[in-house]
């Protein structure tokens, strides 16, 4: 290959080994999964891994959750450090904007304003699937994905998986990578979690669903263990 693709660490134990050292930079990646599979945790690990290296990241919250709630629920994680916020990590509540009627132009403008202000290397939009009911969703996703790469960022878009679907198809279509988080009840009756890389452009990635655990270190992948 003539082009060398830069990589950024995911911050998730085991995951970088599955994809040549990290997410491609720049790129947009969908983290898809149903409730409780670790989407937000994995996204925060990504931001804090950058923050630990002095990289700036922005967390766009689309659900209007105040920052104190996010901090309260995540304070048990070793990788979360409150001192990152305001410096390496910027928290942006976009919920108010999204409640307004109309298209996505105001949202896009606010995202770009924020990016020009802070010039981040890493971005999380959590969750992006909350936007589906607005008009022009597919065009918006395409524009967003392209714009985020032009700004030189790697962006994780989290997406809720609805009953009966494997992943949010409209988002998966426009992004460079798809990481699927899932769970199922095992033989012993306990719920087991899995991570699978469905797509990662420009990357030789390990396929199949690999067992994950969520502890005070966040999501960890046990590569090769309990494969789906």
């Amino acid at each position, binding site marked *: 290959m*003539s*082009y*060398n693709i*830069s990589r950024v660490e995911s911050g998730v134990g085991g995951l970088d080994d599955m994809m040549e050292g990290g997410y491609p*930079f*720049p790129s947009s990646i969908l983290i898809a999964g149903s409730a409780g599979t670790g989407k937000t945790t994995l996204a925060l690990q990504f931001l804090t891994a950058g923050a630990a*290296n*002095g*990289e700036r990241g922005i967390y766009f919250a689309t659900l209007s959750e105040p920052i104190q709630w996010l901090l309260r629920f995540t304070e048990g994680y070793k990788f979360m450090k409150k001192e990152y916020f305001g410096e390496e990590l910027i928290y942006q509540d976009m919920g108010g904007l999204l409640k307004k009627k109309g298209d996505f132009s105001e949202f896009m403008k606010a995202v*770009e304003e924020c990016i*020009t*202000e802070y*010039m981040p*290397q890493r971005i999380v939009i959590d969750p992006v699937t909350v936007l589906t009911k607005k008009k022009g969703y597919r*065009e918006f996703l395409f*524009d967003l994905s*392209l714009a985020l790469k*032009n*700004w*030189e960022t790697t962006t994780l878009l989290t997406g809720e998986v609805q009953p009966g679907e494997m992943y949010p198809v409209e988002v998966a279509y426009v992004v460079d990578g798809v990481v699927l988080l899932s769970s199922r009840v095992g033989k012993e009756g306990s719920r087991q979690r899995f991570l699978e890389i469905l797509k990662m452009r420009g990357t030789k990635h390990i396929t199949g669903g690999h067992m994950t655990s969520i502890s005070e270190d966040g999501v960890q992948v046990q590569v090769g263990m309990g494969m789906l």
Partner: protein
Amino acid sequence: MARDLTASNIIETIEESVARTDAKRFIVSVKSGKIVHVNLTILSHFLKTRKGSGLYISIDRPHKYIELLLRKKDIPQDRLYYADIATRRAGGERGGYSILSIGGFLWLKIMTNSFEDLYIANGKKPEKIDLFDMDFVLIDNAAVLPAFNSMDSIREFFGELGNLVKDHQRMKAYFVVPKDLHPKMFETLRNFVDKILEIPDEWLQ
């Protein structure tokens, strides 16, 4: 702040190198992922300190991004022209962007003072450009050219740009490229510049 130190280091490196030599064509070698940051730093500095005009050739991403960043920093852009090779309005209200193949035509137009492909800020077309009043040409990012051009046409492009710079006494060209993105392309470009300015990775954290 580390960010201010970064900017002053980059500017110092460029100004010292430019002052010490008759070189007119430079590679500014940076680490991947920091092109926008370095372009913004250099452009802001040149627009504040140079008396003449400048040309920003946007190959890797639409020029609107750097235009927006400069506006955000309150940097006047009235002496900056954009040749936006990465952007083409796809038509319709929504627009959209796609890559245009770059051939000799753009350079022919520049050299014959026919500027249909040039813009100034806010998408306006310039009425007249005096190339003898132009101090700099900044190119973002020549390393992506092989994705949609043959190496022969790329060499021709570099050659024509070199001639343009040589023919205008004040003009200097700066190719801001990541050294590791496309090693073969980087080696090709080396043959068309007079000097390489290295921006150390540790300045760009």
